């Protein structure tokens, strides 16, 4: 699958382009192909939803983009991650550190454990401000207080001196967002930002992220298994299965006319999908994800797919482009298929 798109160049050129990203882990039982030629693009100010079951490689994709995969045992085997056309995977580590938390930020799933318990919230936000924007201690702290105000923490000047254990889960995630956005990054990777939170708090966090996106124009890669959140937040959606992107397209297309049988399963399993309550997780699709230990010589979904044909178990499907701005990796849609193919009934 190539990263090239048919969209015209200029301002619509992708801000962030991931292409052919492959990650391997050395395990006791052999090499696990955790990511296999993952590719997608993210335009300025856009939100891309990256969805899939847990363990499909969503978080690994995020960590690989940040170059935070523990190595060993992990290894980025191939691929490219370009931000503004600059290849991140080729940067020296010192250069990459200047990108992290500055041009490309990340927030994590577990706000309860993602903040260091021994430093104040203000210190932890100010730390990256001092590092990347070169502000002195006092100015950085003032900036941190502004950021806390921006993410809706009441009495921010006072709360900046609190330690993480004084904050509730929702407030900690707000603080994480403040930290991530403190240096006005071009793109924010949000890895299941609400999974660990109460349902009511989840909606607040998504509202906050939407509001901040409007105000700052930061592009967001939203990793989630919550189709309701995708419907609400995302412009485009990429669906992941067993370490690969199996389908990518506009949010409307994906939710209304899913092409890949796996996507169809995902969408069908999210009841009332356009207005799913946040937090409603995907119902299980029957069957289990295949082992990542052997690199798939077939379609990884074949064993669970009701449309599977003999070909599906023999060779991995190539990527095809059934419509403008849509891509799918399935033998049901050979490269030559006309653009207006409907989904199989």
């Amino acid at each position, binding site marked *: 699958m190539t990263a090239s798109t048919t969209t015209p160049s200029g301002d619509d050129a992708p801000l962030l382009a991931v292409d052919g990203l492959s990650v391997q882990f050395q395990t006791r039982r052999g090499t696990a192909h955790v990511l296999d030629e993952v590719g997608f693009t993210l335009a300025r100010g856009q939100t891309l939803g990256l969805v899939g079951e847990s363990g499909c490689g969503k978080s690994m994709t995020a960590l690989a983009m940040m170059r935070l995969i523990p190595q060993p045992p992990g290894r980025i085997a191939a691929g490219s991650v370009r931000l503004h056309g600059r290849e991140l995977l080729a940067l020296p580590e010192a250069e990459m550190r200047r990108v992290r938390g500055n041009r490309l930020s990340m927030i*994590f799933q577990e706000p309860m454990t993602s*903040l260091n*318990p021994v430093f104040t919230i203000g210190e932890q936000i100010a730390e990256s401000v001092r590092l990347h924007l070169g502000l002195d201690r006092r100015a950085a702290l003032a900036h941190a207080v502004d950021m806390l105000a921006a993410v809706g923490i009441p009495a921010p000047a006072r709360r900046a001196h609190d330690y993480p254990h004084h904050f509730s889960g929702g407030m900690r995630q707000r603080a994480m967002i403040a930290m991530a956005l403190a240096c006005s990054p071009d793109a924010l990777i949000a890895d299941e930002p609400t999974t660990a939170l109460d349902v009511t708090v989840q909606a607040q966090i998504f509202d906050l992220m939407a509001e901040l996106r409007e105000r700052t124009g930061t592009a967001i890669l939203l990793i989630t298994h919550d189709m309701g959140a995708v419907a609400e937040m995302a412009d485009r959606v990429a669906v992941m299965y067993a370490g690969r992107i199996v389908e990518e397209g506009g949010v409307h297309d994906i939710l209304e006319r899913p092409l890949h049988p796996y996507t169809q399963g995902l969408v069908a399993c999210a009841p009332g999908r356009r207005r799913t309550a946040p937090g409603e997780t995907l119902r299980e699709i029957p069957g289990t994800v295949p082992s990542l230990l052997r690199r798939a010589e077939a379609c990884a979904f074949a064993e669970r797919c009701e449309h599977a044909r003999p070909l599906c178990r023999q060779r991995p499907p190539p990527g095809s482009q059934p419509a403008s701005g849509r891509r799918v990796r399935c033998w049901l849609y050979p490269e030559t298929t006309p653009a207006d193919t409907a989904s199989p009934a």
Partner: protein
Amino acid sequence: MSLFLLLAKRLAYALLLIAAVQAMNFTLIRAAPGDPAEVIAGEMGGADEAVMAQIRATYGLDQPVPLQYARYIVHSLTGDLGTSYLYSRPVVDLILERLGPTVLLVATALLLAMVIGTLLGVAASRRPDSAASGVITVLSLVGYAMPVFWTGILLVLLFGKVLPILPIAGMRDVRIYGDGWVVMLDVLHHLVLPALTLSLVYLAQYSRLARASMLEVLGTDYIRTARAKGLPESSVVYKHALRNALMPVVTVAGLQFGNLISGAVLVETVFSWPGLGTLALDAILGRDYPTVLGVLTCSAALVIVANLLTDLAYRWLDPRLRGRR
């Protein structure tokens, strides 16, 4: 709980504990076979019955034991721990003379063990198959299995016969006199070997503990956050990880302070260090019970103070234990 209230409560409890320590040892000493008066008489080169009676009267030994204990407690509250049979001097004076050297020895050894042990542990945690990790594994086995007095003796042999660059006995060189810096340097020079000997056991333990603790902390979510911020690795390790990883080391160090004093008794004996340990040994061998009781009281107080300091260090390290600002 506010710091003041905590300190007040701890102080009150500490006084109770010390009184209990004194009661227990007082009872033990009185319950044991043998007459203290005979010891004193023995020091004086033998005495007849009349002199013995006089000795008993002088030291209050003719009174009932509970009364003796009550008097001892009241006196110790006023800073009077009795008179040494052996040296015929106030026990408090003897202890104050020897307290400084022991605290110096124990504190230096503890500091050495914690700092070097932690640094080794950190180095090993960052590269599990590195030389530092091998050093820790061997050190923790050898450090535990070597009797501390034997380690000291081997060092005495090494620096006494092969490499005579460090003094192997005492705390001062009688040929060196002067003041201020000269004395301090001389004491430090004498301190090197005893402190090194005593620290070796704990250095081995703390490095192993620090390695395990660092490995755990380096895998936490907040370390990933720190990396995602773009912090340099040194800042991730020494600022974000180390402070969290230190907590178990501090806990264990506090719990083991009593053992450290026990070790100091042996080390002081090997290096003729004029501390509480050598005083205790002389007092015990000479059946000098007031001094023995005084040293026990003093060392219990040292352990209690060390535990309190540990708690304070822990509160400083971990804001979760402090109140809300």
